[in-house]
């Protein structure tokens, strides 16, 4: 975990190890929640809207506005669910919050619960995170013992119960409605929207689902003010965010940096550049589903709008860096195999299409590809895109579009000679004019 010269917002808590209550309290922890418990839900929501905090799990929706969708005076109980299913390949940031700043997360949960009037909250954590779940549970136990959680939260008359719920190995459960199905004890099949969870979510009650990192920022916002947080970021995205950087860099790690930090800076200044002095060949900027970028595109600012403007997306801000020796057909094969494995099987285009793409890429990799396979790959992806209940279908299709568009030579070379392309990749540049 590292950050820029300002020290970041959450990084200090992570460095000091705020999974321990005493440490967190010594750093001013739970003061914001104490203050918030005396505020009205409207005041809390207003402050969070002012902060420009947007969901950091991938979708980027305004957190404050999301909270405001909870019906007033609901006769049914309201639930707050924290998405700790962290499964998008290339993303590993939430683990740092859970294991090293669990109390910032718990404090954020208290504030968010108060804002939507929830008295029960579940943290849905991916099943493989056995140790992180254990650490989180210890922090929660500590909080209960100290009166931070339970019948009288921090001495107020507000009650809140918080439970850890372990998943069991299914990428799809990171999608919020699949997560809710899974939490109800069913297989994780996404639901049709509407109704949105804010109206009908967990146990058919109004529910807010927020990502771990998003909620961990909430105490700082209420502590120092929405305007302070907004000013740290760009016009549309308040504050900092975590960039997970992996692949062929010298220092793979999580970096907490302002929204809109140029990708080049992240790769070369923070992550120490490409390992073994190699040249850059390609970068996946926002988790495995975001369309790949070429070296000449890395001056892009890492924020939602800038990446959308060049046809990619920020997603979960999981940056995967590939050096000049990388076999890109192989990378797409591994990616497509992942989506095929993780497709829940509910919608035919995704269930069948992801399998066809994987099969076709295996064939090309074996050297048995045909020239028409390149276009077939693109056609299959087009058949999935936009034709499924949840975004997993799109997530499987987008990397195909990216790789085939920007590195077409690689796929044609495999079709012709059964091996990666040598030399420059110019067809995309020509076609861009």
């Amino acid at each position: 975990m590292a950050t820029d010269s300002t020290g970041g917002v959450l990084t200090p808590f992570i460095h000091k190890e705020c999974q321990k209550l005493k440490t967190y309290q010594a750093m001013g922890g739970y003061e914001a929640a104490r203050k918030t418990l005396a505020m009205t839900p409207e005041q809390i929501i207003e402050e969070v809207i002012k902060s420009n905090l947007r969901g950091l799990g991938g979708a980027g929706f305004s957190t404050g506005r999301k909270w405001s969708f909870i019906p007033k005076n609901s006769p049914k109980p309201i639930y707050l669910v924290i998405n700790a299913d962290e499964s998008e390949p290339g993303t590993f940031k939430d683990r740092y919050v859970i294991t090293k700043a669990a109390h910032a997360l718990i404090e954020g949960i208290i504030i968010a619960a108060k804002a939507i009037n929830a008295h029960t909250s579940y943290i849905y954590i991916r099943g493989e995170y056995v140790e992180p779940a254990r650490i989180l549970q210890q922090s929660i136990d500590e909080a209960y013992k100290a009166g931070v959680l339970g019948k009288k939260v921090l001495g107020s008359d507000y009650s809140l119960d918080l439970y850890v719920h372990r998943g069991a190995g299914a990428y799809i459960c990171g999608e919020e409605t699949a997560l809710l199905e899974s939490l109800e004890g069913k297989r994780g099949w996404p639901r049709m929207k509407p109704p949105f969870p804010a109206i009908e979510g967990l146990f058919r009650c109004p529910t807010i689902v927020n990502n771990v990192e998003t909620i961990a920022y909430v105490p700082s916002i209420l502590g120092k003010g929405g305007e302070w947080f907004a000013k740290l970021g760009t016009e549309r995205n308040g504050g900092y965010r975590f960039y997970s950087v992996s692949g062929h860099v010298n220092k793979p790690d999580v970096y907490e940096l302002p929204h809109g930090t140029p990708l080049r800076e992240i790769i070369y200044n923070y992550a120490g550049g490409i390992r073994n002095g190699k040249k850059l060949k390609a970068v996946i900027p926002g988790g495995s589903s975001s369309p790949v970028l070429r070296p000449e595109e890395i001056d892009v600012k890492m924020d939602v709008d800038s990446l959308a403007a060049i046809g990619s997306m920020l997603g979960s801000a999981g940056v995967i860096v590939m050096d000049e020796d990388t076999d890109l057909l192989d990378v797409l094969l591994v990616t497509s195999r992942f989506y095929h494995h993780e497709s829940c099987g509910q919608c035919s285009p995704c269930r069948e299409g992801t399998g066809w793409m994987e099969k076709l890429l295996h064939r090309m990799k074996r050297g048995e590809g045909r020239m028409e396979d390149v276009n077939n790959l693109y056609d299959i992806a087009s058949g999935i895109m936009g034709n499924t209940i949840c975004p997993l279908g799109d997530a499987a299709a987008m990397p195909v579009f990216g790789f085939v568009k920007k590195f077409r030579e690689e796929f044609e070379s495999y079709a012709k000679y059964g091996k990666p392309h040598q030399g420059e990749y110019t067809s995309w540049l020509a076609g861009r004019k």
Partner: protein
Amino acid sequence: MSLELSKESKKKIEQALGRYPQKQAALLPILHIVQEELGYVPEDAEADIAAIVEIPVVKVREVLLFYSLYLRKPVGRYHLQLCRTISCTLRGHRDILKYVEEKLGIKDGETTADGRFTISTVECLASCETAPMMQLNEKYHDNLTPEKIDEILANLNGKK
């Protein structure tokens, strides 16, 4: 009842049921508890689990088949789960897999004859910054090299 569990597991199941307004919601936690004690979820336990959460057996089976962490057959005492997704592949997953396979004399998906080791390849474990990595039972092992694999296996061979 063909599902015989320790007192401790039974207590954990009671606690799990208390966390939700609907019994079915405790299904995933209960399956974890059963697997923790027995090492897998035997087929003849499905009906008992279904009775606890008051749903049809087929709904339990459906969940067991859907989630990759639930095992319907026993695996080796030490389950090596090597991540095979993008960042791990970029940083040498295949070499590590080959090394482990040769070292243990089994292939991906197999268990050694003495029942001690199973090798699986799994999808992204969200530890890309420490690629190539694997999960050995509950624990993550980072930045794997052949030397590190030797060390890990030597340590395990010292244990029963």
